[in-house]
């Protein structure tokens, strides 16, 4: 869809990350993505794309943007914090841990807001990891009980058959 906004962009020059964020806040997500793609700086472009996809409710898309930026070496502390948030939203503990570890390893240090957010997501991550571990333990328990129950029933059936054979009078 080529909107009036997109056509206007072609004449007035590329809008930057802030323009994309503004459009996303207005709910004009297609225009926001278009503006984001015109941002020349790769890290700022990734930030605008991730912000737009997060606000459009495309959490998987936002995570893909963050991963691509990280792999290309264009990530930023802001991106990694948002990546952790998105990963926690889709209950992906492994992904969230990867993002938080990257955030913690930033050599330049974090501002107060990002440090506080990182700490908050780390608490949420621990809670999520605990929940998932409980779930996995319950699944293992259920599988074990099923296997042991099946073995016990099989043994009982064999024992019964053996007892009947022995109890049958020989001809």
């Amino acid at each position, binding site marked *: 869809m080529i909107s009036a906004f997109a056509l206007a962009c072609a004449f007035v020059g590329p809008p930057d990350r802030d323009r994309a964020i503004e459009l996303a806040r207005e709910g004009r997500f297609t225009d926001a993505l278009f503006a984001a793609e015109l941002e020349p700086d790769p890290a700022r472009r990734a930030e605008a794309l991730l912000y737009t996809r997060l606000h459009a*409710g495309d959490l998987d898309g936002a995570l893909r943007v963050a991963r691509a930026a990280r792999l290309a070496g264009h990530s930023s502390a802001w991106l990694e914090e948002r990546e952790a948030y998105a990963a926690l939203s889709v209950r*992906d503990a492994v*992904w969230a841990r*990867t993002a938080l570890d990257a955030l913690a390893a930033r050599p330049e240090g974090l501002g107060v807001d990002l440090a506080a957010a990182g700490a908050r997501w780390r608490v949420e991550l621990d809670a999520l990891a605990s929940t998932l571990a409980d779930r996995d333990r319950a699944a293992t328990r259920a599988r074990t009980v099923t296997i042991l129950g099946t073995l016990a029933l099989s043994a009982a059936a064999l024992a019964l058959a053996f007892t009947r054979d022995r109890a049958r009078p020989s001809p």
Partner: protein
Amino acid sequence: MNESLGSFQSVWQPATGLLPEGQYYNAFALPAWWQPRAGPWRVLVLGLGAGTVWRVIEGALPSDMELETTGVEIDPDVVELGRRWLDLPGPGRADRVVVAGVDGRAALHHVSRRFDLVVLDAYQNQMEIPPQLASVEFFEQAAQSLATDGTMAVNVGAFGLEDPVLEALASTMARGFRQRVLAVRVPFSRNVALFARLDSEPPDPRGSDFVPSSGPLVRLASAMAIDGSSRWFDVPDRAPLTDDRNPIESLQRASVERATRSGP
């Protein structure tokens, strides 16, 4: 009404109209805005629950459209709870007909009127689509209950647009309708809405008709229109799901296994 594990069977809020972001019911209000016209908007809901879809559509219709609807719910206790607690209209209203205690597939045999929109929102055991509501024969039958250029919308719980359940269901629907099917990710959720039309196709999310020019659905439709949020399914030579061969349960298992393999 929460069925546990975060799976909500019905949702209520005091005012009719759109629910907060992330609620897939909102997507079912879109077809009326794609085909705005004055007069009645006739809707059949298979899997009515406590009437959430009714309340969402009722409050989000264009001002000159009036909702006339029939809902089918297999569990009469849910209907009773809905009437007691969630403002589901009681018996006696011709524009709000509830058929309780009947399976959606069976109910289609007795539907005589034609509907502008048929909504399928039926699950069992929280996350399993009943096989009798996921076959090409069912979709052929549902298509026959639509008015000219009517739309069918389906709620699918799916892990993305490549989910095996979604692919099988959408292809089966396309075969049943002999038309391409549009799958649209519902923002902030693990749900996908499928849309098919009887005599044409739903609007393309990349086209100018998909996002209404005004009204309550502009933001939702705009979010659905972004790149990567929708997928078209062509009409296949053979339907993946039929009444005789319906591997929906194994596909659901494959869906969960595929989702757990994803990672950074």
